[in-house]
């Protein structure tokens, strides 16, 4: 595939530095313009419009099968819209070279999705390596990223199978950040972790995002996670957007589905009464 000239590659935005520079160009980092997607005649996503700016974290909240993952795959061009247009940095994904597009978007999936045959170091350094960085620069970047996600540099030579779930997830985040992409998308990134590690990761990720100011799309089915991380929350159901609200407003919204979600998550943690009585 011949390398195409792009006005805005990940490296350029990275060297541009601050988020305000990128937003001043006028275009949102990610825009969905009346996007529909269907597979074998089954509609998976209908008429979705949304925008994510640099420095903003958008959480896609919804049940399994509500279209959250489909939405993410439309962002990095793993899927192409059947109708409408997805624009990344102002340019339709149909007009991007898919390889360049994906290298400018960090992707984190559940359990890290690490390559089992690569060491931590090689996993994290993969995109810089295929982007042709020289060895000292990659090594420095890997060390910096390990520190950034709170991992000891001794782990660099380990294989993913030799790490705990939390460590693997941290490596997954580090790998996604390796080439300093302007956009980060995370698919149920912390869902496979135990509750304590998960809560740690959520707080660390929030702190990280406050420093990095990337355009982030975070998919989850956990309302608490959504409220903690989001600037805006999009609630999805059966391939449709139900609401798109700033996080504070979401927590007060009287929309029936939003209330149903809040009620499902608001119960205090105690033994269910039926079970207590039977004992």
């Amino acid at each position, binding site marked *: 595939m011949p390398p195409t000239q792009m006005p805005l590659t990940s490296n350029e935005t990275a060297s541009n530095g601050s988020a305000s520079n990128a937003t001043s160009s006028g275009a949102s980092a990610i825009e969905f313009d009346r996007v529909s997607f269907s597979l074998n005649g089954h509609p998976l996503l209908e008429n979705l419009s949304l925008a994510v700016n640099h420095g903003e974290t958008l959480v896609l909240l919804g049940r399994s099968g509500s279209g959250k993952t489909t939405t993410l795959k439309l962002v990095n061009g*793993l899927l192409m819209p059947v109708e409408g247009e997805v624009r990344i940095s102002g340019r339709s994904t149909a007009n991007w070279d898919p390889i360049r597009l994906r290298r400018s978007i960090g992707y984190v999936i559940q359990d890290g999705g690490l390559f089992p*045959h690569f060491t931590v170091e090689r996993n994290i350094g993969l995109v810089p390596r*295929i982007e042709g960085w020289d060895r000292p620069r990659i090594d420095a970047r890997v060390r910096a990223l390990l520190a950034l996600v709170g991992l000891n540099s001794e782990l660099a030579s380990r294989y993913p199978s030799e790490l705990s779930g939390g460590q693997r997830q941290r490596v997954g985040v580090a790998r996604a950040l390796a080439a300093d992409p302007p956009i980060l998308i995370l698919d149920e990134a912390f869902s496979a972790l135990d509750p304590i590690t998960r809560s740690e990761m959520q707080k660390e990720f929030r702190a990280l995002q406050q420093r990095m100011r990337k355009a982030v799309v975070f998919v989850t089915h956990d309302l608490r996670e959504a409220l903690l991380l989001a600037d805006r929350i999009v609630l999805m159901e059966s391939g449709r957007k139900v609401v798109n609200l700033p996080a504070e407003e979401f927590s007060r919204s009287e929309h029936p589905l939003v209330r149903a979600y809040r009620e499902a998550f608001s119960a205090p943690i105690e033994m269910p009464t039926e079970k207590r009585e039977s004992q």
Partner: protein
Amino acid sequence: MNFLHFMSANRQQVIELTLEHIQLAGIATLIAAFVGIPLGILITRIPSLSKLIIGGANVIQTIPSLALFGFLIPAPWIGERASRLAILALALYCLLPLIRNTYAGIRGVDPAVVEAGRAMGLTDRQLLFQVELPLASGVIVAGIRLAVVLSIGLATIAAAIGAGGLGEFIFRGLAMVSNQVILAGAIPAALLALAADFLLGLLERRLNSFWLKA
């Protein structure tokens, strides 16, 4: 003890025929690997071809080996020398395990890992060489192992068309109704197959435990 006596009396020829045997089976497996592994990769990329190609390799395997040697005799250049003929026939037989295992090995790589690679912006080629082939290597080596054992066994029949190898002793023994001569061909051939199987088995286990630690 007659057999050992025969072996030591003819050790020069035993060594010669063993080397010839290794050469026949080795070259045939190499050729088959250079054709079969790329074909296996091809059908993971173009799945509509998989039925045709695996089916074709299957059909070749069902042709009795002697008949296959016979069919190839009219082929130009190949038919001129018995050893060329034998190598081609053996290579054809070895295609099936190589194609099938390459295909199955690549298809068996965790789809989440492949998708992560694609999402990170790996090109098709990078995905193949850096992710899919390394992770499928254990299964592919298992296919090579099968192919090597198969071709060492079948190469004994190559002597029937004068291609040499340990089959010489076997056919000579049959003609002489002499068990010791038959054994002088059969035992080294069996030992060769066992040794190849063992060594490649070690490699296969190493690759599997290395890549699939998770």
